[in-house]
Structures are given as C-alpha cells and as structure tokens.
C-alpha cells in the first residue's frame, strides 16, 4: 500500500506547489485516512531524492515556515506511467476477485 500512497502524494503535488500539512489534508479528503507526518515526509523525501519533486522553503508570517513541493518533468512522466500501471493492476485484481468460484 505504501507504493500507492506515494503515487497519491505525487498526484496531489501535480495540482501545483503544496506543503506537507495541505497534502495530508487532501489525502484525508480523498478518503485515504489520516496520514501521519512520520509516514508522509519520508515519502516526500524519497520522491525528492528520485528527482520527481523539488522543494523550497517559504517563510510563514509567525510560524516556522512551510516547505513547498513542486512536480518536476520526470515527476510528471513517472505519475503517468505509475497511474497506468496501477489501473492495469487493479483491473486484473478485480477480474480475479470477481471471477466465478470453480470447485476443485
């Protein structure tokens, strides 16, 4: 499920530069449950290490600032590929799960 979560994070970032807390909010709104910071930031770090997103710090008014993530060209390509793979996988899995029961 971790790979899917990473894909979903990539999809959220594709909508424009955004930061950790807002990404968690989008995932929760999408019904994916409350994603903890301890899960989310390592995923973002991995995406950045793979060159799929870039990050930059923006100063907050009084707070400690926000780290904004932006999709890269490689990120857009990866998002397309992985989304297709995910659709193919879920279709096959769904077909198997809904196949008629064959008694041995």
């Amino acid at each position, binding site marked *: 499920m971790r790979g899917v979560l990473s894909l979903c994070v990539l999809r959220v970032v594709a909508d424009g530069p955004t*930061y*950790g*807390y807002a990404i968690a909010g989008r995932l929760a709104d999408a019904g994916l449950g409350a994603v*903890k*910071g*301890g*899960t989310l*930031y*390592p*995923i973002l*770090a*991995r995406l950045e*290490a793979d060159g799929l997103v870039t990050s930059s*710090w923006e*100063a*907050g008014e*009084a*707070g*400690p*600032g*926000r*780290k904004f993530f932006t999709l890269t060209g490689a990120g857009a390509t990866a998002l397309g590929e992985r989304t297709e793979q995910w659709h193919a996988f879920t279709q096959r899995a769904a077909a198997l799960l809904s196949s008629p029961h064959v008694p041995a």
Partner: protein
Amino acid sequence: MEYRLTTTDQAWCDDLLLALRVRDVPGARIGEVLAEVQSHLAETGEEPRDAFGAPREYADQVAAALGVSAPDGVWRQLVRGLSWRDLAGAAVIGVATYLLADGLWSLGAGESAVFGLPSWLVALAALLVLGVATARIVTAARSGRDDDAVIDPRTGADMVGFPRSAVALLVGVPLLSLAAMLVGGYLVGW
C-alpha cells in the same frame, strides 16, 4: 526566528537529531528533517510522538527513504573517531587537573605538594598545561572541523549551537571545584 518549540518538543527533536547523526544522514538533510518536523508541529499543533512516533524509529524511516545504509554501532563509530592524540591529550589534562587540585590544596594547607615540590610551583605548572590544552581544544572547535554541520534550510544557520549557558557550565564548574580545593586545604591545614 520568533517561533519556539516547547521543551518536550525540543527534547524529542534533540533525540531525533542524535538518531539521524548516528545513522550517518548528511547534516544538511538532518536540517531539512528537523525543519519539516517544526513546521508540521506548528501547523497541526500535534505532539511529535503522535505525528512521527519514536525518534529512533522515525530516524530509521528517514534513513531508509534516503537509502542511507545503517552504519555499525555507536561504540564502534566513537572508537573509530578517536586518535591516539586525543587519548594522550585526555591523559595530560587528567594528570594536570589532579596536580592543580593537589597544588591548590597544599597551597591552602601551607604544605608542600607531590614529591615535596613547592605547592605554588606545581599549581602554576599544572595551570599552564591546562591553559594550553584548553586553548588547543577551543581553537580546534572554532576552526570549524565540523564539515557536515546541521544547517537550517530556512536561515542557513547552524542548528546545533553551543549556548552561553553550556560554556558557563563548562568553565564555571571546574573553577568552582578548584576554588573549593584551595579553601578545603586551608580549612584542613590550619
């Protein structure tokens, strides 16, 4: 920066910093992780343990995400980082401190020091050695041998400062102990 962590949050961050250091995560990356945690906590008002779990476990996750391999144990790292010069320096400082304490005690008591040497001479020589040793340590620390500092990505500042209170403690406690030696010797000797 106006933003301040609570003491418990800061303690959690300190543990995380140490855990990341032990896992050989680069200093600049540690700064990023700490800044992310601070930002997240300020944004959500969550407790660090609730949001990120135990410092060590979170450090494991970060190291895994970055593909940093776990190094050998803390002790092996510590031992590997020590040179014979460090050990010899520690021995010299230890002996000089003992001689200074003994010299001051004898001075207070009005007796001669070790080997029947004049107490003022022993104390003065030990003080000189300690002064040189301290100067060497301070210059080494100042010259920025730490080429992998934990840098705050927002300000570029070193996140692991050496506060004045720590300096005061490091200087004050030995001075106080040595003064106590002088007084102790005086009280016992007269």
